[in-house]
């Protein structure tokens, strides 16, 4: 009976993915992508990966969905009729040529799909009980936390997690670089909306508290730095919408400090115990729980700051447009 739910969920996921790519309007596409992310989050729950489900729902569906929605303001059709005519002519011209290309591409994709299915069927035959579950289970008491996923993320494979925080920062720098230094330097002015202010006053404490709860509960259950970081980042995005853009409000040195805090502290801690004779990112088991909580808190702050900055910078890109077209 429970298999039925999984089959339905799988069909739903595939259907939403296809529809989101086939939808004719861009806004449909983005909203179906939202729905796809949430369906995938349900699939993670069915597979017993609640941490992944929270991350998927918060970052991949929530944060990325907001970025896509924000981008729609740029791309949504408000071209003059002349331009629209031009694009339809271009499309009808290009269709003829691209049709000859489309068929081999589709054949390639379907062939690869068949190959993948055969490969999966082969993987099913590998005897069960492999993997690192047993190793993680025996080492769990030494990690300082009770939840295996948090233990892997912040103790056993802390190096990966450190690099991951670095990747978010790198993504932010890349967004800055693409947006141009003018956008970065310019004080951000967001719309002022009295209704939004009340919503913010209501939601900010709730989001903060829920983020802190997820951060702390990561020790013994699903939750942790990334989930908390996204929730705190949502506060920054809400404030931005409500006319309190955090990034022009906070002094620049403080912004930079918040962005790099998690990455730097994580690395310093790693090297500190390396100097004491252990390996990189190896914590003494007695203090491991406390150290992991501190690292997670600082990492969550940095992630929240980076996500807010990515959103603020992308949101700001649109306002440059009239100047650019005027210059041309």
């Amino acid at each position, binding site marked *: 009976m429970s298999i039925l739910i999984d089959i339905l969920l799988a069909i739903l996921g595939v259907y939403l993915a296809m529809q989101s790519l086939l939808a004719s309007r861009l806004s449909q596409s983005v909203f179906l992508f939202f729905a796809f992310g949430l369906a995938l989050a349900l699939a993670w729950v069915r597979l017993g990966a609640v941490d992944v489900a929270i991350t*998927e729902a918060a970052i991949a569906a929530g944060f990325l969905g907001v970025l896509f929605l924000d981008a729609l303001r740029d791309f949504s059709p408000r071209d003059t009729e002349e331009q629209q005519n031009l694009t339809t002519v271009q499309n009808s011209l290009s269709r003829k040529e691209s049709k000859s290309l489309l068929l081999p591409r589709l054949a390639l994709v379907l062939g690869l799909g068949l190959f993948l299915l055969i490969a999966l069927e082969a993987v099913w035959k590998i005897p069960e009980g492999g993997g690192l579950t*047993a190793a993680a289970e025996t080492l769990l008491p030494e990690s300082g936390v009770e939840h295996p996923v948090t233990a892997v993320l912040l103790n056993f494979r802390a190096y990966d997690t450190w690099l991951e925080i670095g990747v978010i920062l790198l*993504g932010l720098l890349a967004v800055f670089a693409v947006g141009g230094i003018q956008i970065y330097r310019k004080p951000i002015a967001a719309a002022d909306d009295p209704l939004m202010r009340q919503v913010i006053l209501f939601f900010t404490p709730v989001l903060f508290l829920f983020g802190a709860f997820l951060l702390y509960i990561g020790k013994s259950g699903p939750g942790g730095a990334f989930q908390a970081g996204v929730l705190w980042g949502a506060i920054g995005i809400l404030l931005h919408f409500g006319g309190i853009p955090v990034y022009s409000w906070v002094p620049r040195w403080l912004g930079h400090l918040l962005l790099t805090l998690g990455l730097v502290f994580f690395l310093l801690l790693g090297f500190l115990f390396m100097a004491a004779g252990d390996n990189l990112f190896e914590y003494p088991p007695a203090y491991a729980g406390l150290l992991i909580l501190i690292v997670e808190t600082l990492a969550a702050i940095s992630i929240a700051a980076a996500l807010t900055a990515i959103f603020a910078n992308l949101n700001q890109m649109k306002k440059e447009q009239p100047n650019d077209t005027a210059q041309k």
Partner: protein
Amino acid sequence: MEIYQIYSLTSAILFVIGLGGVFAARHFIKKIIATIIMGGGVFLCFVSFAQRDALTFADPVPHALVITGIVVAVASAAFALALARRIYQLTGEESFTNDK
């Protein structure tokens, strides 16, 4: 049929849909969405086999890898989105011109 079998089959289908989308979609945003769907397929494959090898809990290493992977995918998608918007601002193009 086991749960992991259903989801690992789904993962292959999602990957193929995403790949087809990357080839066939014209608009930048749809191409980015297609890459995220491809990534979702890969992650689903990881987690479905983690569920198969569960003892008292599911294999935590793929779970941690997938959490890392989702965050990295989102960071790169944000960068791609920034590039797409910049290209649109500067040229007014909504898709790659060499597709024509």
